[in-house]
C-alpha cells in the first residue's frame, strides 16, 4: 500500500473515530445538561406550589378538598397534579424526579416528572409536576443528524485535502527515487545535486542515497582502474612472449623439435591469454563498462553470427534449420555483447554436435509476450547433475580428465544478466541440448 494512501486512510479513520466519539457522547451530555435545567425548574416550581399551599391552603389551588387536582397546559407540555395519599411510600419532603410516560386523553407523552409527598391538614398529598420531554428529544435528534452530516462532510473533504497534500508531500520522495536511482544507468553518471525539499526526512534520505551512491561510484572507479591495470600488467608480458615465440618460429634452420615446442608454447600462452581476456570481459561487463544504447535485431544478428561461423556448420555436415515466427528488436542493448552471446551459443551447438547432426534455431513470442530465442542441437548433451554448473566459472565437468567448459557459458551468463535476459537449458545426455534466451518484454 502506498504511504500516500495510508496517510489519507489513517487521517480519515482518525477523524471518523473522533467524530463518532463526539456523536456518541454529545447527546448524552446535552441530555444531562437539559435534565439538569428541567430538574432545577421542577424543584423551583414544587417549592413555589408548596409555598402557595402553606400560605393560602389547598383551596388556593384546589376547589374541592376531597378531589385531587390536575392541570395541564394546552400542548401537554407541562402539568401539575395533586392527589391525596393514603399510604406513605417515601418520607415527606423527599423529592423524586424521573422520566415517566403519562396519558393525556388519548396521547401518551414522555415527561420528566417530579413527585413529592407533603402533609397538609393531617392529610397526605402527593404533588407531581411534569415537563414534557418531546422538545428535548427533538433537540437531540437534530444534534445527531447534524453530527452525522458534518461527519460525512468532514471526512469527504479531508480525504480530498489529504490526497492533494500527501501527494505534494511525497513528491520529493518520488523525485529522489526516480532521478537518483531509477534514471541512473551507471554509478558514474550519478547526479549528486540535492533534490529540493523542506521535509527533513526526505533530505536525509536524499543525503544518504548521495553518500551511498558516491561510495558505489568510488568502488566502481577503483574496480575499473584495477581491471585496466590488471589487464595491462597481465597482457603485456603475454604479448612479449607471444611475439618472441613468433620471431623464433620464423628463424631459419630451426630444428623441427624446437619448432614443435615453440608451437606448443604458443598454444599454452594463447590459452592463458584467452582466459585472462575472458575474465577481464566478465569483470568489465559486471563493472558496467559497456553501454546499452543500441537497437539489436535478433534475427539479423543471428545471421551475422552464422555468416561468421557458418563454415563450421558445413564442415561438420550439420543440418541447420531456422524458424522465425516473430521478429524482435531489442532496444537499449549492446550489440557486440549480444553478438558474443549468440556466437557462443551457436558455436557450442556446433562444437558439441555430432557429425551429420542438427541445429534448430527458433525465434518466437511466448504467451507472456516475451521474445524467446531457442537454440537446440543434437549433440553430446549435458549430464543432469552438471546442468546447474554449466554457467559457473571454471567448473569441471569430467573430473576424471580434468576438462572444463571454459568461460564461454559464464560469459553468456554475464552478458545475459547485464541485459536482463533469462537463460535456461534443457539437456539429455547423448540426445542434445536446448538453450533458451528469454528477452525482457517490451515496455508498453
Amino acid at each position, binding site marked *: 500500500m502506498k504511504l500516500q494512501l495510508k496517510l489519507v486512510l489513517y487521517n480519515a479513520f482518525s477523524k471518523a473515530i473522533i467524530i463518532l466519539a463526539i456523536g456518541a457522547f454529545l447527546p448524552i451530555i446535552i441530555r444531562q445538561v437539559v435534565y439538569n435545567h428541567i430538574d432545577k425548574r421542577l424543584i423551583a416550581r414544587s417549592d413555589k406550589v408548596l409555598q402557595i399551599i402553606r400560605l393560602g391552603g389547598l383551596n388556593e389551588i384546589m376547589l374541592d378538598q376531597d378531589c385531587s387536582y390536575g392541570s395541564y397546559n394546552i400542548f401537554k407540555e407541562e402539568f401539575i397534579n395533586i392527589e391525596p395519599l393514603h399510604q406513605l411510600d417515601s418520607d415527606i419532603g423527599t423529592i423524586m424526579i424521573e422520566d415517566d410516560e403519562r396519558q393525556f386523553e388519548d396521547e401518551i407523552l414522555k415527561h420528566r416528572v417530579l413527585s413529592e409527598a407533603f402533609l397538609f391538614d393531617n392529610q397526605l398529598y402527593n404533588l407531581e409536576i411534569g415537563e414534557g420531554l418531546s422538545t428535548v428529544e427533538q433537540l437531540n435528534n437534530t444534534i445527531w443528524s447534524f453530527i452525522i452530516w458534518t461527519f460525512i462532510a468532514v471526512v469527504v473533504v479531508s480525504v480530498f485535502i489529504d490526497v492533494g497534500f500527501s501527494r505534494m508531500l511525497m513528491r520529493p520522495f518520488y523525485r529522489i527515487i526516480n532521478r537518483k536511482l531509477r534514471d541512473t544507468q551507471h554509478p558514474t553518471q550519478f547526479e549528486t545535486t540535492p533534490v529540493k525539499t523542506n521535509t527533513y526526512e526526505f533530505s536525509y534520505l536524499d543525503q544518504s542515497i548521495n553518500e551511498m551512491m558516491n561510495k558505489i561510484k568510488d568502488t566502481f572507479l577503483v574496480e575499473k582502474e584495477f581491471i585496466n591495470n590488471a589487464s595491462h600488467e597481465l597482457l*603485456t608480458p603475454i604479448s612479449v612472449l607471444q611475439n618472441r615465440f613468433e620471431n623464433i618460429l620464423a628463424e631459419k634452420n630451426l630444428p623441427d623439435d624446437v619448432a614443435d615446442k615453440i608451437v606448443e608454447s604458443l598454444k599454452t600462452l594463447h590459452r592463458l591469454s584467452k582466459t585472462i581476456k575472458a575474465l577481464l570481459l566478465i569483470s568489465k561487463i559486471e563493472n558496467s563498462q559497456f553501454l546499452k544504447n543500441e537497437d539489436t535485431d535478433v534475427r539479423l544478428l543471428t545471421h551475422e553470427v552464422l555468416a561468421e561461423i557458418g563454415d563450421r556448420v558445413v564442415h561438420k555436415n550439420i543440418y541447420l534449420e531456422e524458424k522465425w515466427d516473430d521478429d524482435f528488436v531489442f532496444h537499449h542493448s549492446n550489440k557486440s555483447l549480444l553478438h558474443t552471446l549468440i556466437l557462443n551459443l551457436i558455436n557450442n551447438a556446433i562444437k558439441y554436435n555430432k557429425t551429420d547432426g542438427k541445429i534448430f534455431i527458433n525465434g518466437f513470442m511466448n504467451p507472456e509476450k516475451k521474445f524467446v530465442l531457442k537454440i537446440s542441437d543434437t549433440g553430446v548433451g549435458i549430464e543432469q547433475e552438471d546442468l546447474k554448473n554449466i554457467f559457473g566459472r571454471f567448473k569441471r565437468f569430467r573430473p576424471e580428465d580434468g576438462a572444463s567448459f571454459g568461460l564461454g557459458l559464464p560469459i553468456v551468463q554475464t552478458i545475459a544478466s547485464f541485459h536482463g535476459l533469462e537463460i535456461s537449458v534443457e539437456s539429455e545426455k547423448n540426445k542434445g541440448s536446448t538453450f533458451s534466451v528469454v528477452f525482457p518484454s517490451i515496455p508498453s
Partner: protein
Amino acid sequence: MNVLIVEDEKSLSHEIEIFLTQEGYQCDVAFTGKSASEKIYVNNYDFILLDIGLPDMNGLDILREAKEANCESSFIILTARSGVEDKVAGLDMGADDYLAKPFSLLELQARMQAVMRRKHGLQKNTFMIHDFEVDIQNRSITCNGKNVPLTKKEFDLLNYLILHKNRVLTRMQLTEHIWGDILEDDYESNYIDVHVKNLRKKLSAHSPVDWIETVRGIGYRVTA
C-alpha cells in the same frame, strides 16, 4: 617504409622491431611519450605504432598532438588496457586501426598493409602467385583468366598465407585471423585443415598447388 614504434615495454618493442625489420621496414623506437613527440616532430614516418599506456603521458595525447600538427603518418594503436572508451576515442581521433595486446605480429603486418591500401589505394591490387592472379580489391582469384570461386574464409586464408609467404603459419595464427578473437579453445580443431583441403582442391583443378605446403605439426606455408 619508416615505422616508429612507441612502446615503453622494451622487450616488446624489440620483438616488433626484429619482425618489422625482417619484413623490410625501417624501424625507429621511442620508449617514452616525450621522445615519441620529438621524433614525430622531426621525422616523417609512414607508420606510428602507438602504445597508449605510456609511463609519462597518455598515448592518445601524442595522437591528438600529431593530428593537430597535420602529421601524415598512419597510426595504429596498440594497447593492453581494456577500456572500451580508449578504442572509440583513438579511432575518433583519427587512428587508422586498433590492436589489442597480445596480438600476432603477422596480424600487425596484415593490418599495416590494409591501412596502406586503404589510405593510398595506388598500390597494385593484383599480384601473381605461381599461375594464379589474386585481386585483393575484388577478392577474387583467377587462373588463366578463369575465375576460381572461393568462399570468403578460403580467400582470407589464402590471402593471409600469401601475405606471409615463405613463413610457417600455425593453425592458431590462421584461426585467429579468420575468426578473430572471440572463439576460445578451438585451436585443436581441424577447421583450418578442412579449409586448406578445400582450397587445394579448388585451386588444383586449374594448376598444381604444391606451393601450399603442410608443415607437419605446425601449420602451413606458401612458398614463392
